[in-house]
């Protein structure tokens, strides 16, 4: 394997300089099995900075006297797959009572690779509304909803009327056996009130208890048949068949939730395909806050979106993100030194950056909480969707700030 070169090769000056000592080395042949190789592949902890290696000497070239022509190819990636479209909310004509429906998904290129194919539908942001006045919210958020905390219908209305919510996500916390263990009937009532109060599409969040969620979802799905609500979520530990059936039989859609694992997401989707058309499924691979696992969240979403576009038939669903989770980060809510103040800004920018980062990984449906964050992410979405070209702006070098 080791080829012995007898002749002296011209070594570059650079290299000579780094040569501390010359050594005469006995070359021997080595045999290394491929098993060993695999073992060795596990990465260690120290990372060498790339580029630290001195390069080979550069060949002197003729200096150009005028600009050399060049053009940049616009890369067109090959994406045989596409994301299914999911319809949310049904109008009267469609069998529901919403003033309009929303379509998400349909992408044929990675998120906002507008040079290839802009997303056909805008990602949508739903405001979170809770049915439990004691939900722990930090001050920066609470101050915007103080008067409506004990009335989900009023809360939803405020979001739509004051903050132009395109969608509302009602989180049913009171049904949690560890909170109030409210019966399905009570949850149905809440949903009916919210449906009355606002005419935008709705999503429902359960409490995470697999049995209770199924009971409550069943009651709501039947009572609101035809509204095309988005139910969140169906998980691997639920009765998947039963959950899927109530979604399908009553014309709703569902979020398939797994925790940060592309294979788990595939598994759940695959199980759902036995009972549900693809167009009824949105997937959620879990959102962690900036600084608290956003890297995992981002990469799992980016990976699954790219895999779907490359043709993986088990991942080509619109992606949902609970970007509200950004508030779990201490930096979002904690009182910190004056150099990091005010937290009234630090919190919402935290939620904004968390959401915007995931927007660029491929998220289609956001649950968010702070009005400023929603507004900000919406502006970015609109800017990215607008197809406008940059305006003639003065360069920043001469800015007087």
């Amino acid at each position, binding site marked *: 394997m080791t080829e012995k*070169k*007898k002749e002296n090769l011209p070594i*570059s000056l650079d290299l000579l300089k780094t040569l*501390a000592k010359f*050594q005469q*080395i*006995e*070359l*021997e042949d*080595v045999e*290394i099995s491929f098993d060993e*190789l695999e073992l*060795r*592949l596990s*990465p260690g902890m120290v990372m*060498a*900075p*790339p*580029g*630290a*290696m001195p*390069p*080979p000497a550069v060949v002197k*070239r003729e*200096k*150009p006297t005028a*600009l*050399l*022509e*060049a053009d*940049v*190819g616009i*890369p067109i990636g090959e994406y045989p797959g596409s994301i299914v479209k999911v319809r949310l909310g049904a109008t009267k004509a469609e069998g529901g009572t919403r003033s309009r429906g929303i379509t998400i998904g349909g992408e044929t290129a990675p998120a*906002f*690779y507008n040079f290839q194919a802009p997303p056909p539908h805008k990602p949508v942001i739903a405001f979170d509304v809770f049915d439990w006045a004691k939900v722990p919210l930090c001050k920066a958020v609470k101050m915007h909803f103080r008067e409506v905390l004990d009335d989900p219908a009023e809360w939803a209305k405020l979001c739509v009327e004051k903050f132009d919510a395109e969608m509302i996500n009602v989180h049913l916390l009171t049904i949690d056996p560890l909170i109030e263990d409210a019966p399905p009937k009570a949850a149905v009532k809440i949903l009916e009130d919210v449906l009355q109060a606002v005419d935008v599409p709705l999503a429902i969040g359960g409490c995470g208890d697999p049995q209770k969620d199924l009971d409550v979802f069943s009651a709501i799905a039947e009572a609101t048949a035809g509204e095309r609500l988005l139910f969140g979520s169906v998980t691997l530990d639920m009765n998947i068949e039963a959950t899927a059936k109530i979604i399908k039989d009553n014309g709703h859609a569902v979020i398939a939730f797994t925790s940060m694992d592309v294979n788990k997401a595939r598994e759940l989707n695959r199980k759902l395909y036995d009972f549900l058309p693809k167009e009824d499924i949105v997937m959620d691979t879990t959102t962690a806050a900036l*600084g608290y696992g*956003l890297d995992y969240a*981002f*990469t799992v979403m*980016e990976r699954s979106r790219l895999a779907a576009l490359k043709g993986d038939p088990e991942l080509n669903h619109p992606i949902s993100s609970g970007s509200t989770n950004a508030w779990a980060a201490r*930096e979002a809510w904690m009182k910190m030194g004056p150099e990091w*103040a005010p*937290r009234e*800004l630090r919190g919402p920018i*935290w939620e*904004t*950056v968390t959401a*915007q*980062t995931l927007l660029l990984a491929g998220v289609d449906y956001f649950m968010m909480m702070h009005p400023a964050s929603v507004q900000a992410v919406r502006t970015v979405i609109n*800017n*990215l969707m607008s197809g406008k*070209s*940059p*305006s003639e702006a*003065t*360069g*920043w070098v001469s*800015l*007087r*700030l």
Partner: protein
Amino acid sequence: MPAKELSPIEVYKMLPGTNCKECGETNCMAFAAKLVNREATLQECPPLLEPKFTEAYNRLWVLLKPAVRAVQVGVGDKAVTLGGEYVLYRHEFTYFNLPAVAVDLSDEMPDEEFEARIKVASEFEYEYIGMKLTLDMVAIRSASNDPARFEVAVRKAAELTEMPLLICSLDPTVMEQALTAVGDRRPLMYAATKDNWREMADLALMYNCPLVASAPFDLNMLKSIAKTLTEYGVEDIVLDPGTQWDDGLSKTLDNFTVLRWNAINEEEEYLGYPLLGAPIAAWTEKAEDPVINEWNEAMLASALITRFSDILVVHSVSGWSLLPLVFLRQNLYTDPRKPVAVEAGVNAFGDPDEVSPVLLTTNFALTYYTVASDIESAKIDCYLVVVDTEGLSVESAVAGRHLTADSIAGALAENKVGDLVKHRHLVIPGRAARLSGEIQELSGWNVSVGPLDSSGIAKFLEEKWKPE
């Protein structure tokens, strides 16, 4: 060759093959694997540096070099490396060099503001999982376009900080005067354009400084300049494709993506350079309240961090708007091949004695440092047992069976925690509550379930810690 496709065998074939162990590895194949993972550099194999291996060295260098050139800016400890990247998506390998954040200064700023900004830039620091998040550079713009004035400004900046400098003027005369003052600091020069490229290239060569090629929203021109500079002999180039907020955002992100794609997937030599993003562009239209500009700048900067930018020029110096940026780049530039973990074992906090509390947590860096900082700030004397959960957080580790009664009992025994204290009371995280019974059975220690969040540890101990 794209980093992900390089196999250790290919590299191994070109190594000396003597298994001499001088690199610190047991054999050449092991070293080859490290090279492929970019955990070692060629110089660590001394025999390879001998003249007879020059050809192999050169071939290996080409094989291993990043698709995006690593450009060094500044000198000394604070020098930063821009670029040096191998992949488009972090899951394909990893990203290496954090995008540098350069804080804006101008030669028209009043002294006080100028100095205050440098102070913020150099003193910015936030503790995050055992790392210090900091800013990296200062950018000095010649808003005046007056060579003498600019020289004064860059000289002053150079005196006040050792951070690398980005010096900005499109006028070669102004640039030259600044270089006479700070050229030996290896500043990044901004910028060569279609109009001034030759003068800027001459300056870059004369002072041996890296140079930005700039052609806002004209990729063909940008490549043309980069190609010309390269052929002219300038090696360290940074590309500025233009940054805009609002209407220009879509095109901005498109351009960054197109450039990086071409560098990585098409291995385009003239585009294989670091990218400069200028979130400061969010200030071109002044809002009624500067907070709006700061906010927009933070969003623009984070979008550019996500989309391949290697250096960012920002104007805001507000902590709330800079903090998310340094977090985001740290997150996206951690190695996805391994969770950030700390060493398992038992650590003493404060001055614990034999009746001090014993607490338990996992070795995920985020978890460990969160808990450690809570303990430190509450000035608690205690022992903290750190269980090896392969770098998983408490809840993930419980769910994934890495934190179990077994592993906990094992950690207690292995670290001889029983010798440190005379009581047998262990406080576990609230999120590991379901393990409490089993731990008690297996280890013989009494278990108290602590709060869900470690910020509650102090209060919890005050109320509940009564080992006697």
